[in-house]
């Protein structure tokens, strides 16, 4: 017999799970969340949020270092690493408390421990090996997320070789750092430590950094990072790690040559692995594909009444994708008609300096998909606000279907673009054409004017360049 029965049990309290639970409560479902560590998940505790706090410290430091360019006098700006990390932890802690409060307000039960599916709508929860209880649920949402991937020979040790968790709670600023992997996570850490004065080398196995971004944006960002003193090795393969007392030597193979790179610390950012172990999936019909749980458009697995959302179901591994899937799953459970999630309308952001943000198809992908495209570009140097901010490096690129005027993709690099991309995302979700974007009034002076100009440029009408 179950200790308690719910309409819905959500396994995992990250940005997918807790949003799903709150939406379920709104729809009148009795709901519980099982969380083994911290409400808010990796995103809030060990990912998106604390890294944004760290990067903000780096940004303030950078601005202080450049104070004289703004006519300000700040003598020898420097930092206290412990306090930078403390601030980041405090931010995470504050939001973790916020999620607890939101769940309580919505009368969502929080069960601390690890969940295991027993089949037939039963979930067993244990904590530290001890049984917490067995719970029944008409529906179950698996929202267990993912963790940093390690490769054979490339394993973290929490001391010389870090993954994200250690990288955001360092006890020392490495003088030199090797970042393996140049996705959003790798690039953000590279940018952070570069700003703190570390000599940073990034190794990427693909032929360009940020490989999911538009090629032009990748190339632009790379140039900016190199200007800041970063070393970037593409088409590079990191060999086994040879550890010294306080250093690591890595044989990096690139373009037919092998080079030994010795650094104080190594950060591994080579992708993620889904958390599907010890979940009791074998007690259900849930199917996986290369570790990720297979789901349909309504986030249903192959087991009736069991849904899966977020990172555990596959790319893109983004908090906002998980949250949306959480809402879709719950609305489907509640018999509503959830909105379909179009992966082309999910924006992606990298909070390095410069920032990178995009939504939809890259120019190359659009062409490969058979579209005849119109491409617009606008550089930050043509924007008054960018110049006033002292942030004149960047660009906004838009890709349209030449036949229909559909906005296929938007790609940005430069200051604050992570805040700007939402404009294009709304436009894409509303299915606007170039006409509405041209007719929209953008406030002057703002960086957003570049979004207007890029659209105009796609049709040969840019004003300020």
């Amino acid at each position: 017999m179950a200790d308690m029965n719910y309409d819905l049990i959500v396994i995992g309290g990250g940005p997918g799970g807790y949003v799903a639970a709150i939406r379920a409560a709104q729809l009148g479902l009795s709901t519980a969340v099982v969380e083994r560590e911290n409400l808010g998940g990796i995103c809030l505790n060990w990912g998106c949020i604390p890294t944004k706090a760290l990067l903000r410290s780096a940004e303030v430091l950078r601005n202080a270092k450049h104070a004289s360019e703004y006519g300000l006098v700040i003598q020898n700006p420097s930092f206290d690493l412990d306090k930078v990390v403390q601030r980041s932890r405090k931010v995470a802690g504050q939001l973790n408390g916020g999620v607890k409060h939101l769940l309580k307000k919505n009368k969502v039960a929080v069960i601390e421990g690890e969940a295991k599916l027993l089949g037939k709508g039963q979930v067993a929860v244990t904590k530290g090996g001890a049984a917490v209880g067995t719970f029944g649920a008409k529906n179950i949402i698996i929202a267990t997320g993912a963790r940093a991937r390690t490769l054979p020979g490339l394993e973290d040790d929490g001391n010389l070789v870090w993954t994200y968790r250690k990288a955001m709670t360092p006890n020392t600023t490495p003088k030199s750092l090797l970042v393996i992997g140049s996705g959003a996570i790798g690039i953000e850490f590279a940018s952070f430590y570069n700003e703190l004065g570390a000599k940073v080398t990034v190794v990427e196995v693909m032929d360009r950094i940020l490989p999911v971004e538009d090629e032009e944006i990748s190339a632009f960002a790379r140039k900016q990072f190199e200007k800041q003193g970063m070393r970037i090795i593409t088409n590079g393969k990191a060999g086994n790690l040879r550890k010294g007392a306080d250093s690591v030597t890595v044989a990096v193979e690139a373009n037919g040559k092998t080079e030994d790179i010795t650094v104080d610390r190594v950060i591994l950012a080579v992708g993620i692995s889904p958390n599907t172990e010890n979940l009791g999936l074998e007690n259900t019909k849930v199917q996986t594909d290369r570790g990720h749980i297979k789901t349909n458009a309504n986030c249903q697995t192959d087991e009736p009444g069991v849904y899966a959302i977020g990172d555990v179901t596959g790319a893109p591994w983004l908090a906002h994708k998980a949250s949306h899937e959480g809402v879709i799953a719950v609305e489907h459970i509640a018999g509503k008609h959830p909105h379909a999630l179009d992966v082309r309308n999910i924006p992606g952001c990298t909070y390095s300096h410069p920032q990178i943000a995009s939504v939809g198809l890259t120019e190359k992908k659009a062409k490969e998909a058979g579209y005849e495209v119109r491409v617009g570009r606008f550089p930050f140097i043509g924007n008054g606000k960018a110049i006033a901010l002292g942030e004149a490096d960047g660009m906004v690129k838009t890709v349209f279907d030449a036949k229909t005027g559909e906005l296929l993709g938007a790609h940005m690099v430069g200051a604050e673009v992570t805040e700007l991309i939402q404009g294009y995302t709304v436009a894409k979700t509303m299915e606007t054409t170039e006409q509405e974007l041209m007719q929209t009034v953008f406030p002057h002076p703002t960086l957003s004017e570049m979004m207007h100009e890029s659209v105009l440029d796609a049709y040969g009408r840019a004003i300020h360049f």
Partner: protein
Amino acid sequence: MTIQILMPALSPTMTEGNLAKWLKKEGDAVKSGDVIAEIETDKATMEVEAADEGRLGKILVQAGTQGVAVNTPIAVLLEEGEDDSALAKAAAPAPAPAPAQAQAASAPAPAAAPAPQAAAAPAPAAQGGGRVFASPLARRLAEQAGLDLKAVKGTGPNGRIVKADIEAAKAGGTAKAAAPQAAAPAPAAAPAAAPAAGAAPKAAGIDAKDLSDKLGMRYKAQPNSSMRKTISRRLTEVQQTVPDYFLAIDCELDALLKVRSDLNARSKDYKLSVNDFIIRAAALTLKKFPNINAAWSEEAILRYDHVDISVAVATPTGLITPIVKKAETKGLAEISNEMKGLAERARDGKLKPEEYQGGTFSISNLGMYGIREFAAIINPPQACIMAVGAGEQRPVVKNGALAIATVMTVSVTVDHRVADGAQGAEFLAAFKKLIEDPLSMLL
């Protein structure tokens, strides 16, 4: 033992192809080197030659089948002395892949039908029964497809019509609806009405779109590409302004086919097609008939120094005519190899303007479709176009008795302002002579 004929890889990168056409029927005798089928890849149409001798026992993959994987058995060849019973013993044929014809199968969705009683062109959504909620993109797609938004069911928030709904409506419509521009029988208007360069000529008389909308006929509007507009403008102009005449002649091909087979057996550096011989023969003939290798202008007839032959190539987007330049100076192998390159680039849309602009004479060959003869429209400002039909075995009378010969009908459409009928006829007769006596091409 029966011999399985496999889908060949016509290029190192080819993984599959479309079986465009069988040139031999079941039961036909096949000699080594005979072209038995035509295979179409994304790049080109190529011929499949038999490697063995025998009789075509059974065709396993029918003409028109798309996406046939390389090395799939496509036919069974019976060796000498074998009869059909050997077929039964042959390995069971692999099932032919389903032809990709999904669009023809879908049932028409009622939602897509424009209201038949609508007397005028589709009314803007704001008229009549209140506001239609549709995304801007959906509105534009509907306009481009000629769909009435009122007849489309919206699945977006609060029933808003979104892109997916328009696509569903389009897919649900009758698949074979005529494109409106194709249907209008446009009677020739006064020559003075020649349209301005750049604009597609407006069909005079009955407007297809107007009529179709009035009668509630369903169609899909295929927007005119710039290539289609160019084809439309130039050919309409020719039909309206050029006084042309048509001549046809039969050419026996057997001698040419033998020469071709002999030459092809000699080297792997070239693979001559019948069309290569036609280009060569036309070039040599035109050199002797400068009055045909010419163009009309108001002040003078321009007789060109060189023979630059435009060869019509069908591409996925439309007709284009890459040019074999100074063809009178080129041998068969050179023409053949150059033509292969041009045709491939034409199909890939990679021709440079200088490769398709400025020919002096055109050849259009529809023989591969089994067309016996046809009248081509002049490629302006050239004075003459040659239309080549299929080479096929026909009964002929020789010395008062019936005989069989491989015969190809060739016709020309000639600008009468440039060359009179007798001149056109002399040219065509001289061409026939070269084709029927191919060794004289060496002279």
